[in-house]
């Protein structure tokens, strides 16, 4: 019998600790599928953040190294500069990449560091209990915006992909989502292109993934998927922001 669906080799046989409906598990899986398909597992070094995915090394069967909050792009720079044969990816949330690590991320992109950021945007700080993130939508309620995010007080949600797209050193920037089978497939393709940009020595690559957090959004999984479509994508439109890879889009 032909096997048509199986666990990626680079994904360990550990049950996920994530909440039901969380986007991390899907993203973990497709990320490891890409690493298997591109046959880069043996030279990949991953950098998970403090946050819900701090235990990503429980699942990813590639070399992994802990980073301080926000410093993933700087750690990745050090790894890649010292050991250019490595395939380096950071796995970062919105608080990590878009708040405390803004400087590290923008400058790594601007230098064109050959690293790939997997940027999971769920519009809240997940592990700390659902506080406002830089990407929290206007009027969105979080534990630190209990009356809803007020632009006069907390400012606007930050659009990192658009900012990173302005960096001359960025080779590939795309925003995707994991709230439907079609979007999951697109996300996987974007991750693949992002790694290819790194392998082809073209520069910095980032895939921003809109990802549901039913627990902190206080929604069911299905409602969360809908909220991404109906609310998040209005502020964070899906699509390629920048692509200098010259690769033909297979769609």
């Amino acid at each position, binding site marked *: 019998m032909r096997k048509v669906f199986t666990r990626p080799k680079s994904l360990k046989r550990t049950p996920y600790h994530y909440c039901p409906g969380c986007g991390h598990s899907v993203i973990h899986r497709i990320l490891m599928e890409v690493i298997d398909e591109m046959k880069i597992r043996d030279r990949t070094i991953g950098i998970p953040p403090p946050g819900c995915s701090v235990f990503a090394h429980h699942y990813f069967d590639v070399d992994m190294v802990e*980073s301080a909050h926000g410093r993933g792009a700087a750690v990745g720079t050090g790894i890649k500069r010292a050991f250019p044969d490595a395939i380096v990816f950071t796995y970062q949330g919105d608080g990590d990449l878009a708040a405390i690590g803004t400087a590290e991320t923008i400058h790594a992109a601007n230098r064109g560091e050959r690293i790939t950021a997997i940027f999971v945007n769920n519009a809240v700080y997940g592990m700390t209990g659902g506080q406002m993130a830089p990407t929290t939508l206007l009027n969105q309620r979080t534990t630190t915006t209990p009356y809803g995010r007020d632009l006069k007080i907390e400012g606007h949600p930050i659009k990192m992909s658009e900012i990173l797209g302005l960096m001359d050193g960025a080779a590939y920037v795309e925003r995707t989502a994991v709230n439907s089978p079609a979007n999951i497939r697109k996300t996987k393709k974007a991750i693949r292109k992002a790694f290819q940009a790194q392998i082809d020595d073209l520069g910095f690559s980032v895939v921003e993934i809109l990802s549901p957090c039913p627990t902190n959004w206080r929604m069911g999984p299905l409602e969360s998927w809908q909220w991404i479509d109906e609310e998040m994508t209005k502020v964070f439109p899906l699509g390629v922001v920048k692509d200098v890879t010259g690769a033909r889009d297979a769609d």
Partner: protein
Amino acid sequence: MTGNAAVGEAAIRAGCQCYFGYPITPQNELTEYMATHLGRKEGCSFVQAESEISAINMVYGASLTGARAMTSSSSPGISLKQEGISYLAACELPAVIVNMSRGGPGLGSISAAQSDYFQSTRGGGHGDYRTIVLAPSSVQELADFTHRAFDLSDKYRIPVIVLGDGMLGQMMEPLEFKHKAPDVPPIREDALRGANGGPSRVIKTFTSNPSELEEINWSLFRRYKLIKRDETTCETFLVEDAQLVVVAFGIAARIAKGAIKNARAEGLKVGMLRPTTLWPFPSEKVQELAKSTKHFLVFEMNMGQMLEDVQLALGGTGEVQFYGRPGGVIPTPSEVLRVISRLYYQKGLK
């Protein structure tokens, strides 16, 4: 050659492969030296980072791949590096951090000071950890200690701080380099460089199990005990018959040495203890000296920081006086001589 350049050349000769820095006075000549002499070297890398925080995290990244990596800065920049130093210590990664310290607190001054003794020796970041701290007092020692810093760092897998100051960094002195640069920079065997067909590995400390973290702490401190036993160093000067021993480190020790020579010319029996490792501190040497000398004068270019280590070592035996000038003021040997003479006669020493 300036002290700053000497550190750079010594680092390259020690096989330093990666340097990451951020401009700050008075250590810029070191960053510039590395940009010129390391940046284009085969297999090496120089990055002018966007901040000191990024620079130390790049060191962390480079170090875990097995490369010899360093950064340098001056006091306010070293404050920013503390987060990264704590992570390096936690993950047992070697790194060399050079501090050409300046006056503080705050933005302070750009003149030489020794106010970062606490920050360096107590581990300025969070958590229970130590860093080895080397204290040179000449351009020759800056070069020698930089080389030693890389060796100690690799041997004990611990961040090592070379604590200089703005004066040492910018002064010019003749020196001799005792090592030739290796043709290929060395790579540590336990480096993380991709699973390469084997099982994957992880470098981390975060755990939800306190006992596991406690064991990491115990293991670090078992190693610190070995470092204390085997790597504590100091220099003594005319202590055999001394009635009064001056304790000073770095550039202050050099100033004190001038004062002591003049005191000797006047017939005062004064000697000096100069710790060359600030952590581990040569407490046993202080205790040994206390058997023949009752009087100690701690002299520092700060408000009295190493003073506490001397007091701890003496544990109430002996009499300790302190003279310090903070803020980047450079005391003269004659000023220190006046302090020595006054103390000598006040205490009725002969």
